[in-house]
């Protein structure tokens, strides 16, 4: 393809500038990851993945309960955030031309800008205060709410990129409009919608503030969604603030595991969703 940036003698200054800025984006990510590896890999061992925390002063112990807790809380968050976010995005793109659509769009953008700690406090007021105890479920709700606006807006943008003639083709076959939206338009845009979901997921996976008031954290094994539950981000926060040296080390390892889990989850979804693709599909 002809690229105007490459025409003429050599590579233009704009092309060079954009290459350099692209490289610069990778630097912070690599720096963080390398830093985590250096500081966190030292305390990593199998026990870290299989044991629960030991009291301060005792050697060893791990974050198994926090790893599982993070998984469960994110599971609840995704069950809430993904369907609501996608549903909202479909409404905005396919039906929301009027005032209501504008109102929802505005609300989603505002919700996107609300600090996560405020969302945590709101869920604390809505669920924790009423139930009179902290719970993993309320943590999942807080993170799920945070996922909705990102997913909704990404879904809307992606659906609007689907050419109208694809919708017309479906309607012309006598496929009802709701079915067209779900099975044709959404399917055509699925690549971008999944990217939006993964962005939202990765963003909330490391959130600490909303969990402080909701999931609260737990030093012991708990798989009960209506009880306080450990999460990696909370554990890293508590350990990082503690005065103990080996807790500091474990905090680094916890952060490393958290990042690895997020990257692993995003990569897994990518692999699974790209497998079904056939030759020439866009």
């Amino acid at each position, binding site marked *: 393809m002809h690229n105007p940036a490459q025409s003429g003698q050599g590579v233009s200054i704009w092309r060079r500038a954009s290459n350099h800025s692209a490289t610069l984006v990778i630097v912070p990510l690599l720096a963080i990851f390398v830093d985590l590896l250096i500081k966190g890999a030292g305390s990593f061992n199998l026990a870290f993945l299989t044991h629960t925390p030991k009291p301060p002063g005792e050697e060893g112990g791990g974050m198994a309960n926090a790893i599982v807790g993070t998984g469960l809380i994110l599971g609840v968050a995704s069950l809430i955030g993904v369907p609501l976010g996608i549903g909202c995005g479909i409404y905005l793109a396919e039906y929301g*031309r009027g005032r209501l659509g504008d109102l929802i769009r505005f609300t989603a953008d505002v919700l996107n800008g609300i600090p996560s700690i405020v969302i945590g406090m709101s869920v604390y007021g809505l669920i924790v205060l009423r139930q009179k105890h902290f719970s993993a479920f309320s943590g999942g709700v807080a993170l799920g709410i945070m996922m909705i606006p990102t997913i909704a807006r990404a879904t809307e943008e992606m659906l609007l990129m689907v*050419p109208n*003639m*694809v919708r*017309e*083709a*479906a*309607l*012309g*076959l*006598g*496929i*009802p409009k709701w*079915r*067209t939206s779900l*099975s*044709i338009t959404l*399917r*055509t845009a*699925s690549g971008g919608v999944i990217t939006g979901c993964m962005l939202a997921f990765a963003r909330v996976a490391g959130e600490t503030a909303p969990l402080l008031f909701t999931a609260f954290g737990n030093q012991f094994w708990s798989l009960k969604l209506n009880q306080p539950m450990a999460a990696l981000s909370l554990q890293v926060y508590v350990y990082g603030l503690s005065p103990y040296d080996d807790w500091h080390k474990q905090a680094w390892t916890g952060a490393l595991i958290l990042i690895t889990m997020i990257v692993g989850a995003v990569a897994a979804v990518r692999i699974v969703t790209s497998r079904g*693709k*056939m*030759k*020439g*599909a*866009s």
Partner: protein
Amino acid sequence: MGVGIEVRGLNAYYGKHLALKSVDMTVPANHVTAVIGPSGCGKSTFVRCLNRMHETIPDASAEGDVRVGDVSVYGDGTDPVEVRRRIGMVFQKPNPFPTMSIYDNVAAGLKLNGFRNRKQMDELVERSLKLSALWDEVKDTLHKKSGASLSGGQQQRLCIARSLAVEPDVLLMDEPASALDPISTSKIEELIFHLKQHYTVVIVTHNMQQAARVAELTGFFLMGSLIEYDKTEKIFTAPADKRTEDYITGRFG
């Protein structure tokens, strides 16, 4: 088998703009009927009114009496979705579903309307692809290739197969060959000729030679009105209306 179409007093609007003015037309079953006219004359709007696709455009509306076989298209309680199932449509630009395989493209109308019988579906897909003269080119890659990987001409025949798979009575074609090269165009035209054995075909075209080649009847539209409607031969050799004559001799449009 195809069914006839009766149009009486059809008006179509875009917002307040009247785009079709009281059109009357009788389309016989199992014939190819061409609709010609200059750009903006309402010929596309006309065919889109026949299967109620017109109203899917925001602010667009239509009124009048349209009967396709025994169905009153604009009758009270007529479900537009049901109308579109019985009246297939092929659009100007090939529009296969880009993320679906060739097979899934053809089967889409069946699957998404709750059709579950796998064996019957295979047969319908094969029959539709054979009718649209695409079977031999794609039979080995039905599930492997996406509809979007085909050439433009193949894509358009795929779209025709997709319309045929839901077994409509009527096939509407809105300039089906205008985005294709001459070889693909002649394939589509040949196809149209065969399709009339099974279907009633209404084709919009801005190519007068094409109308002369494929259609038994031709209607000439100008500024939202049906000016003249007669046997194709008559329209192109001895038109009754001066405006038709001016158009087909290339004096305007």
